[in-house]
């Protein structure tokens, strides 16, 4: 039988069937797995379930309301550089919506949370009243490239809305 008869894409891709892993994932949150396989955030959770830095290489609470994050030097796959401005762009985009996250409003940043670019690699987020869930929320704040925002974004073309669609 032809290996990967149902899974070998056509079109002369650089990786042949021998380098293809075909999976079946019936999980209702498969959409989230695909997102986390193809997007990146400030932080992530490793295979042992432990939080790890990702596009932010470190962070610290300056006081009970101010979180400072240091961004990693990295480039997107299309060559566009990642920097603190891209983090700010991701924050501004998610804040445009009332309830962007499918799991629920507990992932929302409060409306009065602010994000300031200090320099090319540093941002400061201010959480009036404090928010110990900040790092959990950042795990759900995707940081894609300009090309993604310009060509796709999270807006559902059927509804014109990104509510519940992030």
């Amino acid at each position, binding site marked *: 039988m032809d290996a990967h008869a149902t899974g070998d894409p056509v079109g002369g891709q650089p990786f042949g069937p021998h380098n293809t892993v075909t999976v079946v994932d*019936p999980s209702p949150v498969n959409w989230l797995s695909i997102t986390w396989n193809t997007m990146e955030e400030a932080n992530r959770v490793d295979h042992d379930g432990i939080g790890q830095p990702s596009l932010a290489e470190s962070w610290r609470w300056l006081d009970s309301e101010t979180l400072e994050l240091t961004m990693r030097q990295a480039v997107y796959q299309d060559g566009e550089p990642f920097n603190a401005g891209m983090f700010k762009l991701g924050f501004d985009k998610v804040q445009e919506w009332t309830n962007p996250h499918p799991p629920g409003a507990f992932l929302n940043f409060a409306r009065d949370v602010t994000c300031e670019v200090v320099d090319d690699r540093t941002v400061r987020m201010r959480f009036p009243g404090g928010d110990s869930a900040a790092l959990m929320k950042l795990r759900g704040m995707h940081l894609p490239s300009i090309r993604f925002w310009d060509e796709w974004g999270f807006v559902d073309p059927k509804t014109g809305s990104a509510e519940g669609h992030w």
Partner: protein
Amino acid sequence: MLTEGVSLIDSRSDRVVMEPNKTYWNPDRKPTVRIIYDNVIGKTEGIKSVAAGDGRVDVVFDLTPDEAHAFPASEHGKIQTKKAKTILTGVFNENRPDSPWRNPEARRALNLAIDREFVLHQGAHGYGTVIPAFIQPGRYGADPEMKPFPHDPEAAKSALEAAGIGGRELVFVASPAWEGVVAAIGQCLAKIGLGCRFVSAKEEPPEEFDVKLEWYFDWTPQYPVACVHREFFGKDATLRQGPEDPDFDALYDKLLHTPHEPQQEEVVRAVERYLQDQAKALFLYAPYTLFAVSDRVAFTPYDTCMSELAETRIKG
């Protein structure tokens, strides 16, 4: 790098293709293989494919305990388990103001009626770990002093009779995946004179059900209360089957305003103790996540239950 297909909450393309990002910054997570999510073949056929080694499927996610147990001896593939951050727990139906399950003594008594190790082994082939409340021992937020409720059928029987529940048939709503677990619970209940009826969660649940089994998982970076506990008991909980709980809400609010460690983890432990002190749920166990995996693949499962595949490799 997504090159084909989509996976949305309400729809999926027949397949989703991801190519490795050759310029990715993290050498530990630099993908080496093309990944194809096949959304046509289905779980049953996928499991058969892994066992047969026909090359169509390499990894199948989310097997039920029965599916994993039935996987045949094969030289082409195997069952892989992961002690993920999951729970299987029973939510008491406290919707009616006169529900007997609003009484913590009744909830505690039903917990005492359950032999959890028996339920795990009889009902789920042992694929899991008995836990005290919602967090596994050794994980962030677990209270090392907490133990699972003991199995004490005599105490359970007298307390349930005192609460007016003696001799009843209890209705358990659950996914068909957990029908064996409900059957094992029923064997425990039979020993104290209670009946047990399984109702599939795929049907409209009867208004008068007693307990609904829910599987849930924690994907967070050490912030389980917001993801899991809140989903069962918080103001905005989607799984709550009863009134709001101001005491839980106060603990959650305290957590939100405790940004520093070790104080934050101590609040998480307090939440866990509160759940057990109030017998807020019928605590059961943490199910393993179960996969059928081809021998040609070195598969790295995630404790978050997400199918993140950056570390997955082809052997050799």
